[in-house]
């Protein structure tokens, strides 16, 4: 006694979608035409209708676009209300049936969402009559709204199609086997749902990538701006040029760059050595003070690092390693306490089996030989990870570098130097150079990172998490 699933809901949904598409394209077409020819009967009609709808609000009849826009908004209202209502109905239906499968809530939720978006459109359409807008803005509005409607249409069509497919499968199964197909609870067919979720995910990923990269794209664009060095409200430069980059060479920027580069190199080497010593010992040797030492360093790490800044500055000052000589001073500060960052490397060393050490001991190696001949060749990923992180650190260190260089330009690193260009007195003349400087700093570091990305990932996932 199995009812045949009717095709009507699916067909209705597809129909609505197609009609919507048609309406949108039609209106867009109309807009294009009215802009070409100034006066047609349809335009007059649209004007009158538009005036009636948005009458309470003063609107300039010369703005044909405004009228059509309001029409579009009205349509959206109707569609939106329908979607909201049906969405709520579907949700209640699913809740009432205590649906376990999450997928059955999706159609209702989707409809609700679309309805809400459309309601926004309606609100905007109303407000348009009140607020002033420019010609360019109007077209952007138009396209945005049209786009939203098209997406909804596509969704409706898609859902309709999948329902169609499912109903067809259901009916066919009933006809042939006398029984409904096994997969009754899924609201969409397997392939179709994968496809849609795949599309959804990919869209999301694209949007995410755009969002993540926007600031950097903006920086690069702004670094090419030559018409003014002030921070402005638009992105694309009106005049393009390399002026900012050449200007960098005339300032102290090369000195800062050199400082940071030297610091990064020296720190990369020395810090790696110290961290590896520390983590190897803590991983491999069991001596009495081992656990107390680790707890002690844990507690030390709970103090804010900045606390030590003041006294280190005084001590370095007495040693003559501040201000203009900030570079050696900073190097000393960085590497001296770097032993505390043993955590990730230790986690990695813990994964190397101790029986290798024992076998080497039996073969006659001293502990030092074990380290250099057996363990280190196996620890290549973590060594590279440590070198990479140690190298990248001085490029971004801000607080310590600033405090120790104490306003002396010759001792600053790139972070402090570039930041000084953003101070109130310098920002209007140096903003674009800041962007250029940022690009110059970011590019080599990024390229290095991308090349060694594999090791970084291994280090983070292997060592950072095991511990």
């Amino acid at each position, binding site marked *: 006694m199995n009812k045949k699933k009717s095709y009507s809901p699916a067909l209705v949904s597809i129909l609505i979608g197609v009609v919507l598409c048609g309406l949108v394209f039609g209106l867009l077409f109309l807009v294009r035409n009215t802009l070409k020819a100034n006066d047609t009967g349809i335009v007059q009609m649209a004007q009158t209708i538009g005036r009636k709808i948005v009458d309470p609000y003063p609107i300039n009849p010369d703005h044909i676009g405004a009228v059509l826009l309001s029409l579009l908004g009205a349509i959206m209202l109707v569609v939106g209300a329908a979607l909201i209502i049906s969405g709520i109905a579907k949700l209640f239906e699913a809740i009432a049936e205590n649906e376990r499968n999450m997928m059955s809530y999706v159609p209702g939720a989707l409809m609700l969402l679309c309805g809400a978006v459309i309601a926004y459109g309606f609100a905007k359409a109303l407000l348009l009559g009140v607020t002033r807008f420019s010609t360019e803005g109007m077209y952007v509005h138009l396209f945005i709204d049209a786009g939203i409607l098209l997406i909804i249409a596509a969704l409706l069509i898609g859902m309709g199609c999948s329902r169609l497919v499912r109903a067809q499968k259901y009916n066919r199964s009933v006809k042939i086997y006398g029984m409904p197909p096994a997969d009754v609870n899924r609201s969409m067919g397997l392939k179709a749902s994968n496809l849609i979720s795949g599309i959804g995910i990919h869209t999301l990923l694209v949007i995410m990538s755009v969002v993540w990269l926007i600031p950097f794209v903006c920086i690069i664009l702004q670094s090419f701006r030559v018409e003014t060095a002030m921070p402005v409200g638009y992105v694309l430069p009106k005049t393009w040029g390399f002026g900012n980059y050449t200007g960098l060479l005339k300032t102290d920027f090369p000195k800062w760059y050199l400082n940071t580069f030297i610091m990064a190199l020296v720190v990369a080497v020395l810090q790696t050595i110290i961290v590896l010593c520390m983590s190897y010992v803590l991983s491999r040797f069991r001596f009495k003070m081992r656990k107390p030492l680790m707890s002690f360093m844990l507690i030390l790490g709970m103090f804010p690092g900045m606390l030590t800044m003041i006294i280190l500055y005084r001590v370095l000052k007495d040693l003559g390693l501040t201000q203009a000589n900030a570079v050696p001073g900073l190097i000393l500060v960085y590497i001296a306490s770097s032993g505390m960052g043993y955590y990730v490397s230790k986690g990695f060393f813990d994964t190397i*089996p101790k*029986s*290798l050490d*024992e*076998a*080497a*001991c*039996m*073969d*006659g*190696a001293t502990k030092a*030989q074990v380290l250099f*001949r*057996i363990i280190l*060749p*196996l620890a290549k990923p973590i060594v590279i990870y440590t070198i990479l992180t140690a190298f990248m650190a001085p490029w971004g260190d801000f607080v310590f570098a600033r405090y120790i260089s104490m306003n002396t330009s010759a001792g600053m690193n790139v972070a402090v130097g570039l930041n000084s260009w953003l101070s109130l007195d310098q920002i209007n003349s140096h903003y674009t150079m800041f962007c250029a400087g940022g690009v110059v700093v970011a590019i080599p570091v990024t390229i290095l990172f991308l090349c060694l990305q594999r090791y970084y990932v291994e280090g983070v996932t292997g060592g950072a998490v095991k511990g």
Partner: protein
Amino acid sequence: MASVKLTNVKKIYDKKVVAVHDFNLEIKDKEFVVFVGPSGCGKSTTLRMIAGLEDISEGTIEIDGEVVNDLQPKDRNIAMVFQNYALYPHMTVYDNIAFSLRLQKLPEDVIYNKVTNAAEILGITDYLMRKPRALSGGQRQRVAIGRAMVRDSKVFLMDEPLSNLDAKLRNQMRAEIILLRQKLDTTFVYVTHDQTEAMTLGDRIVIMKDGYIMQVGTPTQVFEMPENLFVAEFIGAPKMNIMRTNLRRNMNGNYCVTPFGSEIEVTGFKNEELKALNARDGEIILGVRPEHITLTENGGPNTIPVTLEVNEMMGSELHLHVYTEDGTRIIVRVPTVDLDPEKRCSLVSGKKLNITFTGKVMHFFDPKTERNILVKED
């Protein structure tokens, strides 16, 4: 001369946990000694103490007459094969084997000769330039042995080397280790949890439990004269059948046991030994191996009536799992070669049978101390 002598060796962790109690053993030169026992019995710990990988809490270990307690592993002149082979992953097979020789700063041509010799003996000359990850389990096993071989050490230690291999490979490698032993001619100390390996490989077996030595003896000795209940049950597969029963003299003055209501006389030399011991009547733990139990046709004196539960077909023999009237389970091994086909078909679940055994296969254990009463304490 490469003898190993352990005197009163103890291993205590954290001042509380005693892993090895008072271990005393003398291993003669060129002897193959196997430490065997269940997990956690302390056999690996003892081996590692001999190797120098664990500190000795108390007692002394002498290798070749020299006390080695404070010597580093590399100074003790011993070689070890680890359970998971511990091959250096980033080196080729050749480099793995040559590693210890290079540390001794031997000239390269000497190293070459030694390594290729060992490779030939072990049959791995084709793999010398491969890295460990490109080898199978058995091949890695051989490389590990090769690495230990080239050191020409006095004592060869092996820590459960076959436990990572599948059953067929294990049998094969067992034979190869016996061959290797003949070629190498040094002292071997071998640790395993598998009693079959212990019995086939060892000149002498040391059975351990919870850090104590249960018995030291040749395979024959531990099989035929187990000193205590643990050894009796550990050695031999399937396990020896253990029955709690009573020992008493019967009317003829001979000893007999009374399991499950039946009376079975102790025949043979065991009777004489019991008489010599003047064993008292009373409770006794009786042990009889499955292969020593026979089926008889009829009931009567000296038999036990049982019911068949499960019949396992092993190929050349049947393992019959039977149970007595009070539910005790006994295993009987019956060779199939002389078995009447009719009789074999009748051996189905529920069939009533009678079993019997002679006196010379009985083992008697004191119920309280679990010691074999016929074995003298020394």
